[in-house]
C-alpha cells in the first residue's frame, strides 16, 4: 500500500513533536560515557558497541546538542567512517566493520533526548497497564549498554485517534480533523510537568508536512546520507513544504490522578496530551 494521508500526518507529527519538545523544553542531555561491546544477532556483519542511553539527538536544529558524537578508542579519536564506524542514533550505539577489535576501549560524547519518542503499537490502556517498559533513566549512571530495539522510558507514545472530514469549501475541500494522543511516561513529576507545559503552549501553531520517505534514519539507525547529505535539520525539512501545513487547533493536557496512580503497576508519572489537528485538503480528488 502506498503512504496515504494518515501515514504522512503521523510521520510529520512525530518529527515535529520530537523537535518541539527538545527545542522549547531543552529536553536533552549530553553525556560522556564508555561504550560496551555486545553481539547483536540481528546484525551479523558488524561489531556493536552500545552506550548506556538510547535515542540520541540527530537534529541539527537543536542548539547545544552534540549531533555528531565524538568517539575515542585505544589510539585516540575515531572519526565517522573509520573502520566503517556509523552511529545508530535510535539504539544509542556504534557499529563497526566486522574485523574491528572487540576488546577496544571505546568512550564518547553524545546527546540524549530526555524522552524517547515512539509511535504506539497498542492502545492507551495497554501502554499503561501492562507495565512492560524498562526504564532507561537519564538521572542515574549505568555501567553497561542499554538493550537495543526494546522501547524504554522515559518516553512519549504517539497514537492516532479519530479522523473526520468536515466540509469546508465548494469544490470538494474539506477540513480533516484528526485526534492524536501522546501518552507520556516520566521519571519524576518535574519532568512530566515540563513536557505537559511545553505542549500545552503548542495550541494554535502549525507544522509542516514531511513526506513519508523523509524519515531521517536509515536501516542501521544512522542519518540517510542520500536524503540529508549535510545532516538532518527538522526546520529545513518541514519548511520545504510551506503549502502543506497542519494546524494544531486545540491541545488538552492532563495528568493521571493520584488515586489512579496508586493502583497502577508502573513506577512512573503518567500524563496525556490530546491534540486536535486540522488540515485543509481535497480528500476525494
Amino acid at each position, binding site marked *: 500500500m502506498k503512504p496515504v494521508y494518515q501515514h504522512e500526518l503521523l510521520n510529520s507529527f512525530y518529527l515535529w513533536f520530537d523537535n518541539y519538545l527538545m527545542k522549547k523544553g531543552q529536553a536533552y542531555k549530553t553525556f560522556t560515557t564508555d561504550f560496551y561491546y555486545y553481539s547483536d544477532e540481528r546484525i551479523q556483519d558488524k561489531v556493536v558497541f552500545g552506550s548506556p542511553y538510547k535515542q540520541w539527538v540527530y537534529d541539527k536544529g537543536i542548539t547545544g546538542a552534540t549531533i555528531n558524537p565524538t568517539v575515542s578508542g585505544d589510539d585516540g579519536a575515531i572519526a565517522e567512517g573509520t573502520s566503517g564506524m556509523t552511529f545508530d542514533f535510535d539504539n544509542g550505539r556504534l557499529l563497526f566493520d566486522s574485523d574491528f577489535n572487540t576488546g577496544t576501549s571505546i568512550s564518547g560524547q553524545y546527546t540524549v533526548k530526555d524522552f524517547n519518542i515512539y509511535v504506539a503499537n497498542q*492502545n492507551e*490502556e495497554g501502554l499503561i497497564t501492562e507495565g512492560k517498559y524498562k526504564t532507561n533513566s537519564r538521572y542515574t549512571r549505568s555501567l553497561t549498554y542499554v538493550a537495543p530495539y526494546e522501547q524504554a522510558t522515559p518516553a512519549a507514545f504517539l497514537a492516532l485517534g479519530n479522523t473526520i472530514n468536515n466540509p469546508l469549501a465548494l469544490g470538494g475541500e474539506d477540513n480533516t480533523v484528526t485526534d492524536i494522543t501522546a501518552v507520556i511516561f516520566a521519571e519524576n513529576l518535574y519532568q512530566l510537568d515540563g513536557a505537559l507545559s511545553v505542549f500545552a503552549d503548542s495550541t494554535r501553531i502549525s507544522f509542516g508536512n514531511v513526506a513519508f520517505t523523509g524519515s531521517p534514519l536509515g536501516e542501521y539507525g544512522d542519518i540517510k546520507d542520500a536524503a540529508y547529505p549535510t545532516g538532518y535539520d527538522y526546520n529545513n525539512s518541514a519548511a520545504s513544504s510551506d503549502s502543506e501545513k497542519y494546524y494544531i487547533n486545540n491541545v488538552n*493536557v492532563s495528568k493521571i*490522578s493520584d488515586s*489512579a496512580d496508586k493502583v*497502577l503497576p508502573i513506577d512512573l508519572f503518567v500524563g496525556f496530551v*490530546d491534540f486536535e489537528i486540522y488540515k485543509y485538503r481535497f480528500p476525494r480528488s
Partner: protein
Amino acid sequence: MAKNFSQQIQRQIEGQYTKERVYRKAVKEKVSQELLSLRENFLAEFEKHPITREIEAGPSASNSSGTLSGKGNLFSFIGFPAKAKPIAALRKVLEKHAIRFNHGRGRTTVIIDAPTMDEIIAATPLPWATGRSWVRGIEHGLSGLGRYLNTRRRTGSRSGGGIQVKNKLRGGKFRNTSYLSPLLNKYYKGIEKLKRTSLK
C-alpha cells in the same frame, strides 16, 4: 422637502416604540416563551439519550447504548466511583439559562446565555485524569483505563495481569458515538431562528 419630513417622522416613531411598555412586555414574553420551549426540548433530548440513561443508571446498568458491544456498562467503563453522580453535574451546566434585554433607540438586543461545549468539557472530568472530559471521550474515543482502575481498586490487587485479562473478556471495546454536539447544534440553530421571529 416632504420626503425628508416623512423620514424624520418615521425615525422618531421607530425610536419611540422600544420605549413602550407594551412592546417591551410583548418582546420579553415572546422570546422567553420561544426560548423556554427550545430549552425544554434540548433538555428532554438530553434526558432520553441512551448515554445519559445508561450512565445515570450507575454501576449496575446494562450497556443499553451499545457503545461497549453490550458488555459491561459505561459508568464502570469510564471509571466513576460507585457513588458518583456524573449526570447531575452535567445537567447543572445544561440547565444554565439567562436572557437579558437591551432596548435602545428603535432596536432591541436580546442576549441569551446558553451552555457551551467548553463549559460542558470543563464540568465533566474523567475521574482518573481530571484534565480530560468524559463527554468529549464519548464522542472522540475513550480508553479502557477507567474500567481497569475500578477493578484494581475493588480487588486491591497490585499484580494486574490476570485481572486485566478477565476484564478484557468481560468488557467490550468502546465505540465512539455522537452525544451532546448534535443536541447543542440543534439548540443553537433554534436560538438563531429566533432572530427571524415576528411579534405577531
